[in-house]
C-alpha cells in the first residue's frame, strides 16, 4: 500500500511538471492555434541557463528568478523575430519552423554545454519531510512550486488588466485591436509567459531526469498528452490533464507495463484522444462551416 501511495504522490509531482508544460502549450495554442514543438527545448535551454548561474556561485532561488526572467525574454524574442513572419503561413511552414527551432535550440545546447549528462541541484532538503516515507522533499517542493505558479497565473489572467487584454487578444484579435489592444505584443507576451512557465517545469524536473540536451523530449510528449486529454484550448483542462497523465504514467509504469514502454503510454494516449475525443475533457468542440 505504501508503495502505491508513493507511486501516486510521485505521479502528482511529475504530473505538476507535465501540467506546467501543457499549460505553456495551451497558452500558445489558444492565441495562435499553433502547437509549439519547440516548447520542450526552450525549457531545456532555460534549465541550462540556471545551471550555468548556479555553477557560477549564484544562490539557487536567485538563479531560479533570473532564469524565469531570461526565459521570458527569450520567448518574447523568438516570437518577435522568428515566429511573426510566418504567423499566417500554411500549417506545413509553421510546423517546419517549429521543428527548425527545436533542432537549433537542441544543437546549441549540445554545442555549448556538451552532451554529457549533468546533475542538477534540488533546492529542497535531502531527507523526507516530517518523517514521512512515501514522499521526498523534492516531490513535495515541486508540487508546491507548481501550485504557486498556477495560482499566480490564475490571478494574473483573472484580476489584472494586462491579463484581461491578453485573454481578449487570444479570443478575438480583430475586436481587441479595435479597442486599442496591441495584439502582436500580447502574442509575444504569451510566448514569453509560456517560456517562463516551461523554465520552471524544466528546473523542477531536472533533478529527477538529470540535465542533458534531450531531457525534455519525453516530458514534452507527456505534456502533449496532458494538453490533449484536458482539451488543448482549455488551461484548466491542461492542468488537470497533466496530473491525470502523471499519475497514470507512474501507476502503469510500476504495475502494468514496466518502465521500458513509458513513452508509448503517451503515444497511445495521444492517438486515442485525438481519434476518439479530439476536444479532450474540457475543450470546445469545433464545428467548421463549409
Amino acid at each position, binding site marked *: 500500500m505504501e508503495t502505491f501511495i508513493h507511486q501516486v504522490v510521485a505521479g502528482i509531482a511529475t504530473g505538476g511538471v507535465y501540467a506546467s508544460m501543457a499549460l505553456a502549450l495551451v497558452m500558445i495554442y489558444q492565441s495562435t492555434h499553433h502547437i509549439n514543438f519547440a516548447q520542450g527545448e526552450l525549457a531545456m535551454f532555460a534549465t541550462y541557463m540556471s545551471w550555468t548561474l548556479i555553477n557560477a556561485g549564484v544562490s539557487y532561488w536567485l538563479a531560479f528568478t533570473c532564469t524565469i526572467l531570461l526565459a521570458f525574454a527569450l520567448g518574447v524574442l523568438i516570437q518577435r523575430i522568428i515566429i511573426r513572419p510566418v504567423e499566417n503561413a500554411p500549417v506545413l511552414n509553421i510546423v*517546419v*519552423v517549429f521543428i527548425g527551432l527545436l533542432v537549433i535550440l537542441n544543437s546549441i545546447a549540445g554545442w555549448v554545454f556538451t552532451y554529457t549528462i549533468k546533475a542538477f541541484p534540488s533546492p529542497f532538503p535531502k531527507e523526507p519531510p516530517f518523517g514521512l516515507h512515501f514522499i521526498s522533499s523534492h516531490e513535495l517542493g515541486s508540487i508546491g512550486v507548481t501550485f504557486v505558479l498556477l495560482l499566480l497565473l490564475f490571478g494574473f489572467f483573472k484580476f489584472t488588466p494586462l491579463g484581461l487584454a491578453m485573454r481578449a487578444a487570444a479570443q478575438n484579435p480583430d475586436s481587441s485591436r479595435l479597442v486599442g489592444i496591441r495584439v502582436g505584443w500580447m502574442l509575444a507576451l504569451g510566448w514569453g509567459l509560456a517560456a517562463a512557465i516551461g523554465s520552471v517545469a524544466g528546473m523542477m524536473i531536472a533533478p529527477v531526469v538529470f540535465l542533458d540536451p534531450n531531457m525534455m523530449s*519525453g516530458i514534452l510528449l507527456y505534456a502533449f498528452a496532458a494538453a490533449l486529454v484536458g482539451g488543448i484550448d482549455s488551461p484548466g483542462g491542461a492542468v488537470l490533464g497533466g496530473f491525470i497523465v502523471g499519475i497514470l504514467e507512474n501507476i502503469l509504469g510500476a504495475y502494468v507495463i514496466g518502465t521500458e514502454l513509458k513513452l508509448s503510454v*503517451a503515444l497511445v494516449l495521444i492517438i486515442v484522444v*485525438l*481519434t476518439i475525443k479530439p476536444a479532450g475533457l474540457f475543450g470546445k468542440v469545433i464545428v467548421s462551416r463549409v
Partner: protein
Amino acid sequence: MSSNLSSHEKATPWIWLVLGLLGACALPFFISNYHVFQLSMVLTYAIALVGLNILIGYSGQISLGHGAFLAIGAYTTAILMDKADMPYWMTIPIAAAVCLVVGFLFGLPALRLEGHYLALATFALAVALPQLLKFKHLEFLTGGVQGIVIMKPEAPWETLFGLKLNADRWLYFFTLAVTVVMFVIGWNLIRGRVGRALIAIRDQPIAAASMGIDTPLYKSLAFGVSAMFTGVAGALSAILVAFVAPDSFTVFLSITLMVGMVIGGVTSLPGALYGALFIQFIPNIADQISKAAPWAIYGTMLILFMYAMPTGIAGLFHLIGRKLRPTHP
C-alpha cells in the same frame, strides 16, 4: 502548383535523363568505395523523400514520424535475412508490402486528424519509436538494444563489361535500379489519376469530395504508398549498412527526412534527389566543426527556406529555368 510542375516535367528533355543515368552508372568506377557507399545512401534517401513528397506535398498530410516506416522497412529486411536466410533482393518487395499495409492502417485514424494534430501524433510516434523497437517481448525478433547484424551481400559477378565489380559497387547498381523503378512508379502515380485526386483533395477537399473522389480512400492510400516508398528506402539502407539498431531510428531521423524534403522542394520528384544529396553531404562537411554543427545548420536552413524559398531547391531551379527560357507567345 500542379500545372507548373507538369510543364516543368515536360520541359526536361529525355536526353538529360539518359545522360544523368549513364553518368550515375559510370561514377562508381572512378571514386573510392566509401564514396560509392555514400552515393548509395543518397539514393535510398531520395526514395524515402519521394514517399514524403507524395504524402506531404501532394496529399497535404504532415508526417513528422516517417522514420517509423524507415525502421519497419529496415527491420523487415534484417529479420528476413537474419532469421529466414532470405536473399537480400527478395526482402525488398516484402518490406514494401509490409509498409504499404502498415501505412494504410496508420492512415485510417490519421484521417480524423488534420494539420497540426497529425503532425503531433506522428511526432509522438517518432519520439516513442526507439522504445518500441527495444521492447523486450519482441527481442527474439528485433535483437533488442543490440539490433541485428546482417551479412553484406557479395557481387554476383567478378566483372561487368570488363570493369571490376565489388560489393559496394554492386550494391550501388542494385540500389540505383530500385531507385529508378521507384521514381518511375512515383512519377506515374503523381501525373496520373491518383496524383490529380490527391492534389484536388489537398487544395479543395469539399469540392473534391463533391466531384466523386473517395477522399478517405485516397488519403489513406497516400499514407500507404508513402510508407511503402519509405519502407523500400529503409530496406535498402539496412542492406547497405548491414546493421539495424533502435538508436538509429530516433526522432532526429524523421526530422532529417523533413529537412531533405523542405530543402529539395515539397512537391517535386527531382527535389527528392537534391534533398537527399543535401542530407547526405552537408553534415559530413559540418561535422568537422562540431558534433552539434550539422543540426544547427539543418535547423537554420529549415527556417531560412521557409522564409525565403518555400519551394526548395527544385523551385529555385524551376524559377531560373523559366527566366532563361524565351516566353511562349
